[in-house]
């Protein structure tokens, strides 16, 4: 078992942080890499990015949004309990370079994935402008952490409950107008990554996105995670998850994420029945 040593609800009931004992993985992981977790015998294999690793303590930290059956099951795990299986580090590390000024754009729990990448970019000596957003104030995560590693931090909420009233892309436009930006990194809902890529394209700003297709093994064995990049099929688990946003077929990815929509609802229903007899 991989024990949970710390648990936090970053947004009550919806955004959960788990610090998990996994010394081997903690020692090897680099920014941008992910793990696959399975809660119990009947569980599904779920990919989550490591927001933090602590090689000394031998722990990794994941932050996830509760969206369906498996993440709802993860939410039930307490400190002292744990995951039956944790596999990783998987995927290629994020490609970090010193380019001058970078813009880091994060939406929802994507901020958790963005955080270690942003930190890496900062440590290389880049000037970091971060733009993070969420549907509403309560869902905005890692504000203090992002502030500490950003030269400039912009906050947005869709409902205007905090920071700029509107989307991260609005702020991004202003930044691109005012600054010479060498690189953009965007992590969040697929639609957000698509729009960010469309906005940066006319400015010729290279844009890296971190894709989240449905995965099973995470080792290049099943091909379920294939995404179309520049007209070519890539396996996100071994060729990614980071890709050039200007080349990704986001519409196809969005469709493919719906592959098990019906089953996901059915599974969540079955789960609810078990919880509330």
């Amino acid at each position, binding site marked *: 078992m991989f024990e949970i040593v710390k648990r936090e609800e970053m947004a009550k009931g919806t955004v959960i942080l788990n610090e998990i004992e996994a010394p*081997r*993985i903690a020692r*090897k992981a680099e920014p941008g890499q992910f793990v696959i977790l*399975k809660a119990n015998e*009947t*569980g*599904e*294999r779920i990919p989550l990015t490591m927001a933090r690793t602590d090689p000394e303590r031998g722990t990794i930290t994941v932050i996830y949004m509760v969206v369906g*059956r*498996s993440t709802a*099951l993860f939410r039930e795990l307490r400190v002292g309990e744990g995951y*039956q*299986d*944790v*596999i*990783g*580090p*998987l995927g290629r590390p994020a490609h970090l370079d010193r380019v001058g000024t970078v813009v880091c754009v994060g939406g929802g729990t994507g901020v958790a994935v963005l955080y270690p990448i942003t930190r890496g970019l900062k440590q290389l000596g880049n000037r970091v402008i971060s733009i993070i957003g969420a549907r509403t104030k309560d869902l905005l995560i890692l504000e203090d952490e992002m502030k500490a590693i950003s030269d400039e931090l912009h906050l947005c909420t869709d409902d205007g409950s905090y920071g700029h009233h509107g989307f991260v892309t609005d702020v991004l436009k202003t930044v691109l107008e005012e600054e010479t930006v060498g690189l953009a990194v965007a992590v969040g809902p697929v639609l957000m990554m698509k729009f960010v890529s469309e906005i940066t394209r006319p400015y010729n700003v290279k844009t890296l996105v971190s894709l989240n297709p449905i995965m*099973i*093994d995470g*080792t*290049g*064995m*099943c*091909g*379920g995670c*294939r995404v*179309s990049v520049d007209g070519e*099929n890539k396996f996100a688990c*071994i060729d990614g998850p980071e890709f050039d946003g200007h080349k990704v077929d986001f519409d*196809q990815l969005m*469709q*493919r994420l*719906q*592959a*098990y929509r019906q*089953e*996901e609802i*059915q*599974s969540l229903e*079955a*789960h609810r029945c078990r919880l509330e007899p």
Partner: protein
Amino acid sequence: MAEKEPVKEKIPRVVMPGQKPDIRRRNFDEVPLGYTSEMAVEEASRCLQCKRPPCVAGCPVDIDIPAFIGHIRAGDFDEAIKKIWEKNRLPAICGRVCPQETQCEIRCVLGKKGEPVAIGNLERFAADFARINGIEGAPLRQRPTRKRVAVVGSGPAGLTVAGDLIAKGHEVTVFEAFHKPGGVLVYGIPEFRLPKEIVFAEVALLEKDGVDIECNMVVGRTVTLDELFDEGYDAIFLGVGAGLPRFMDIPGENLIGIMSANEYLTRANLMKAYRFPEYDTPIRRGKNVAVLGAGNVAMDAARTAIRLGADEARIVYRRSRQEMPARAAEIRHAEEEGIEFLLLTNPKRFLGDDSGHVVGMECLRMELGEPDASGRRRPVPIEGSEFGLGCDLVVVAVGSGANPLLTSSIKGLELNRWGYIEADPETGKTCLEGVWAGGDIVTGSATVILAMGAGRKAADSMHGYLTGGRRLP
């Protein structure tokens, strides 16, 4: 060649009872039901106990076939399984999935005039009898050597190396990327051909012998080969299989409902998606299923689709019946279960609806031309023969390649041009000091027993290396 003439009143080969096709096509229980003790004794009595038995030469792990069959004939089932264990620690598996008709049974002298002894069925019987009755072999371990061996991959190749080297007194750790050991035996071959409980029981016997199995270890990622040597391992065996799915590379292949056989079978077998929602992993239940390819993997996928409730499941294959690579028994089972064969047909593109779900394929009819490099007649498309075929699930089972995840992490490891590891066919030695390889990652997709045979040879060579190196090439 025969030592004796077959006995006068010939006993026919004892047929193993099984589930009837119309019943089994809707459940995941095992199809053949196994021999009773009486049936096993009767079948065993057909064996001529040849003095120089040709059957043994057909078994890549050298089971003393007449000896174990002799024990079954005498009703001494304990001794029978102990005899088998001397050479093979996975008999319940081999008895079920070995292509006996091209390995041991093809060489049986009885096969010359009639039907060969059902060696596989008898091996299965002995192993099942032992498991059900809790018979355990005495620990086979020799004096400890204090040498440490790392085995990467827990498929049949890796498990054989582990079993052999633990018996020779070495310390063995198996590292497996998945959360369960067994390789293709657990993620690929379906429950109705090889119940997973049986695989886990045979793996448990190895653990009892002292083999340490660490799952969730993606070697090359979680730990590298260099780090394993640094941690004190003296020799390493690479048995990671051929786990890279091949696709058709035709338009529309990323539509929802089109997936590799690896994905489809992994969901069904390893993740037990056929028991969804009791198990959390979902699987697409197609009503009208097309499986591309005609090997064992394709048969398994089509038979799984039927069991998941398909009205129709079709094998779509570009060559003719004669060229189908699957075992004869698998093809027969598939046909009995109502699977249709659409031969000399190849998809040209996939068709989808607005929401990105597959709804059909455009296919071309083929004819056979001149033989190609493999000696099989090359399928050529008939111009203008396009026709449509409706389907809501497509499983692509057109073969697999070498997964580069591990091999690309090892500096200096020699690969052939398809990405498989270069290893000496006699010893399994790679070009790197202290590193051996075997099974599908060396030969490309083959069979369980060939992977085990490769494991046996590598284990012998590794043992020589670990105990003085005299057998080093």
